[in-house]
């Protein structure tokens, strides 16, 4: 489908969010055209990618029309007005189903909107639909979705990462320039890494959790996914900020992330390489690209130091005690009494039986495992040795970060030990699956900021590798600054974004309405 002037529809889907916003604001293209182009793209490729669980075509076009009306009336538009966005299905939306990738919430329509969703809508961002995810955000591959896996646009036989796999794939497949994910153990950064895009975990509390269906309350952090560091920063700014409805939300100004993304330099910055994460646990190509990225930083003027964070080796076990414990409690409310699935209510069974039958039918195996693990860790007699101890280890990890950030301004590591693995490879081996979060988990436990930016393809499989840049809590801008510098230098080397090296997805002929 071709359009005049501004370019073809496929051009519109290749623009960055910043470019789209500028084009809409200047009148070069209408928000409706932009939205339609992306809806067409979804129709063309999502049967293969399966990033979306729900596409709200009518609502999206109406929102786009509203932006066009505002523009025509000369009213001021926000920096992302008219830009389409894919929203992870863990966020409550009053006008779209919210399933959290689970059967237990199939077709559930919340009677309220998440704060983040409301802020985006108020900013004129066009929500295209809800994306697929590991059930209740538990997983690293999106294979735990009750609605089927999402496929990596780089190689449809491989996982897009998880739990925000749908959001990541949507951006990588040009179905949306922006997406929202949530990061609890790495669920924004790891998918971004294996899909060759940018994913950011803000400081915990930086964005409101009101309306974010809780998995692990003290870890869950909503954040942006995009194809460029600047786009991620723009979305970060639009979605963040204090919310009185969330007691844990940070009551301080949003760090100057957009300015930092534009600044994009590292001269004089101290970059710390975490010893415990450089030990060769990663795939060869991942390690190689990481080492090159560190050298690149040095060549850009950063001072590279080695930093030891001794308790980081306990981060994975501590996380797999704390997160399941909190989730076992957070998911108790799915009891068939007030909303969601109800199974077995034949008029003779008790409430207790109906609860148990419903949860048995409505939850997948990973969710059940974690609920039981969490129940175990909180049990009387076990609490001190498991949950209690894990929370102490968490303090030690936070102290490790504090000490490290005295020696370095940012810390770096590979985002995840491997590139995208094949669908089905780890799904029956929980412990192997958990290893994907090895490098991302410490920042979730400490609550500081961390971004993943593409740093190349692994030679052995031609798949994307991510560089993780960690900054102190509330210093999110520092992560963007370094990330943008790396991106600029590498894209110059590559002659364009990494994503341009992916094979084009086959476009299905279909109803382009």
């Amino acid at each position, binding site marked *: 489908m071709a359009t005049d002037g501004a370019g073809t529809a496929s051009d519109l889907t290749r623009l960055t969010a910043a470019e789209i916003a500028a084009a809409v604001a200047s009148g070069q293209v209408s928000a409706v055209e932009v939205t339609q182009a992306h809806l067409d793209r979804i129709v063309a490729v999502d049967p293969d990618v399966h990033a979306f669980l729900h596409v709200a075509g009518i609502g999206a076009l109406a929102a786009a029309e509203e932006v066009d009306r505002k523009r025509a009336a000369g009213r001021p538009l926000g920096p992302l007005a008219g830009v389409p966005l894919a929203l992870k299905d863990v966020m*409550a939306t009053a006008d779209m189903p919210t399933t959290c990738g689970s059967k237990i919430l199939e077709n559930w329509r919340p009677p309220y909107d998440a704060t983040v969703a409301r802020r985006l809508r108020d900013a004129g961002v066009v929500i295209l639909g809800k994306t697929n995810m590991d059930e209740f955000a538990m997983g690293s591959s999106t294979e735990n979705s009750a609605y089927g896996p999402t496929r990596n646009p780089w190689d449809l036989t491989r996982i897009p990462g998880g739990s925000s796999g749908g959001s990541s794939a949507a951006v990588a497949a040009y179905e949306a320039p922006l997406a929202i994910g949530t990061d609890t153990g790495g669920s924004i950064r790891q998918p971004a890494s294996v899909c060759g895009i940018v994913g950011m975990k803000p400081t915990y509390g930086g964005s409101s959790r009101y309306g974010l269906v*809780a998995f692990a*309350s003290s870890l869950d952090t909503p954040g942006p996914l995009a194809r460029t560091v600047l786009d991620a920063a723009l979305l970060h700014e639009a979605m963040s900020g204090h919310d009185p*409805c*969330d007691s*844990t939300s940070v009551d301080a100004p949003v760090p100057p992330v957009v300015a930092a993304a534009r600044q994009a330099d590292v001269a004089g910055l101290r970059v710390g390489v975490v010893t415990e994460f450089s030990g060769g646990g990663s795939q060869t190509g991942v390690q190689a690209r990481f080492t090159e990225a560190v050298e690149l930083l040095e060549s850009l003027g950063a001072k590279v130091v080695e930093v030891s964070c001794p308790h980081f080796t306990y981060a994975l076990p501590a996380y797999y005690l704390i997160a399941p414990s909190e989730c076992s*409690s957070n998911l*108790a409310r799915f009891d068939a009494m007030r909303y969601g699935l109800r199974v077995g209510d034949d008029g003779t069974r008790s409430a207790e039986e109906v609860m148990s039958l419903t949860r048995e039918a409505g939850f997948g195996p990973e969710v059940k495992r974690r609920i039981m693990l969490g129940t175990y860790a*909180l049990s009387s007699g076990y609490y001190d040795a498991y949950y209690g101890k894990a929370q102490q280890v968490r303090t030690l990890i936070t102290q490790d970060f504090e000490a490290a950030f005295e020696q370095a301004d940012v810390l770096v590591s590979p985002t995840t030990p491997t590139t995208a693995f094949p669908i089905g490879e780890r799904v029956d081996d929980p412990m192997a699956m958990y290893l994907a979060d090895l490098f991302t988990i410490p920042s979730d436990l400490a609550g500081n900021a961390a971004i993943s930016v593409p740093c190349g393809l692994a030679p052995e499989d031609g798949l994307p590798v991510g560089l993780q840049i960690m900054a102190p809590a509330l210093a999110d801008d520092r992560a963007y600054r370094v990330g943008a510098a790396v991106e600029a230098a590498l894209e110059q080397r590559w002659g364009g974004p990494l994503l341009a090296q992916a094979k084009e997805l086959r476009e299905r002929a279909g109803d382009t309405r």
Partner: protein
Amino acid sequence: MTELAQLVPYDEALSRYEPVIGLETHVELGTATKMFCGCPTTFGLEPNSAVCPVCLGLPGSLPVANRAAIEYTIRIGLALNCSIATWCRFARKNYFYPDMPKDFQISQYDEPLCTDGWLDVVTGGSTVRVGIERVHLEEDTGKSLHMGGATGRIHGAEYSLVDYNRAGIPLVEVVTKPVAGTGALAPETARAYVTELRDLLRSLGVSDVRMEEGSLRCDVNVSLAPRAATEWGTRTETKNVNSLRSVERSVRFEIERQAAVLDAGQKVLQETRHFHEDNGTTTAGRSKEEAQDYRYFPEPDLVPVAPDRDWVEQIRASLPELPAARRARLHAEWGLSELEMTQLQNAGALDLIGATVAAGASAADARKWWMGELARHANATGADLAALAITPAQVARVSALVKAGTINDKLARQVLDGVLAGEGDPDAVVAARGLAIVSDEGALMSAVEAAIAANPDIAARIRDGKTAAVGALVGAVMKATRGRADANRARELILERLS
């Protein structure tokens, strides 16, 4: 299936066993909104019309603590002589139940807001200092209607209907330390504690504390140990204790029941029991296969509560005069006896006396009228004193009329009758019923002459010096004037006349 409990008669039980009691009281706070959201706490609204994503526990919702509820709790803690925590947290109490929207309750576990206080309670003439273990803050649950069964209770119901309007209302839990050494006065002590606590809470203005409406709920713990035992016995917890009288009765019953169990050489089961209003007994709740493990952990969605000492002192300075201090002050001001003060307190009449005194009567007069004639009226109709159709100001007026000599005590009773019957203010009743004492000397003189004339033999005895007989003639004058004569003046006139 009813459980027929064996009982040992109360006095006998106490001759062999020592009771230890404990009370856990839940108080619904009278804040305008709920503990963690802005829904109203108004009683009696249409079902599920005062709910929001937070108190419904919808996926994605988050709690935010109500500052007023924290303040009320600190106020209660200070009034109970507790230490206020410098830093504490909320905790999740995890269990599944349909009236709990999140299937966990946000409460406090090992870090309560207030600890280690006391409340003095008077029973049988002596003072017992009831230790307060803790005062903490939590949220209330929804309410279920059990349908399809015969009794409206859970057993035998086919299904239930749940209303979440009450879910999330702030609840303060006050837990006493075990109270030993009360002996035979254990039931009364328990009742007196709840009464005193209720009055205290009411004076603080933190709750309307109506047991009938459920804004004050009591669980009663009782254990028995043989006299001279070194360890306490196993305690039971009795719920559904919905009135002060039930508090007393439930303690009494448990003592009698547990004594029988122990006499039979068996062990008292540590269990939750249910009190039955109709016959004053307790029965065992449904036995659970395993004891509840609530898997408490600190609530991650809330940040710690750290009341700074300035705020605490501000709250302390704003505390009203507490009931015990007030009683002591009134006792001194009114000059009534200990016994009279206790009677007033038990009758809940302190406020009435206070208001009557404020309206100009003496404390003694106020007490006389409220605890005498008016109490008789109240008992006859089964009403509370405060519910009678007469105000303290009106009672003070009646007292003033008597003092002024306008009426006497006997006439005053008729005036009170008239006010209670709705005939108007005391002065109006006096006028309408013609109850004023006859002040006209002439009329009085005529009545005196008539009485003398009608009783010549008595008159003769008086003339002879037997002045004691004058009483009979005074009586005659009173009868003739239908009680409206000034008896003293009549006496004077008679004696003058016959001297």
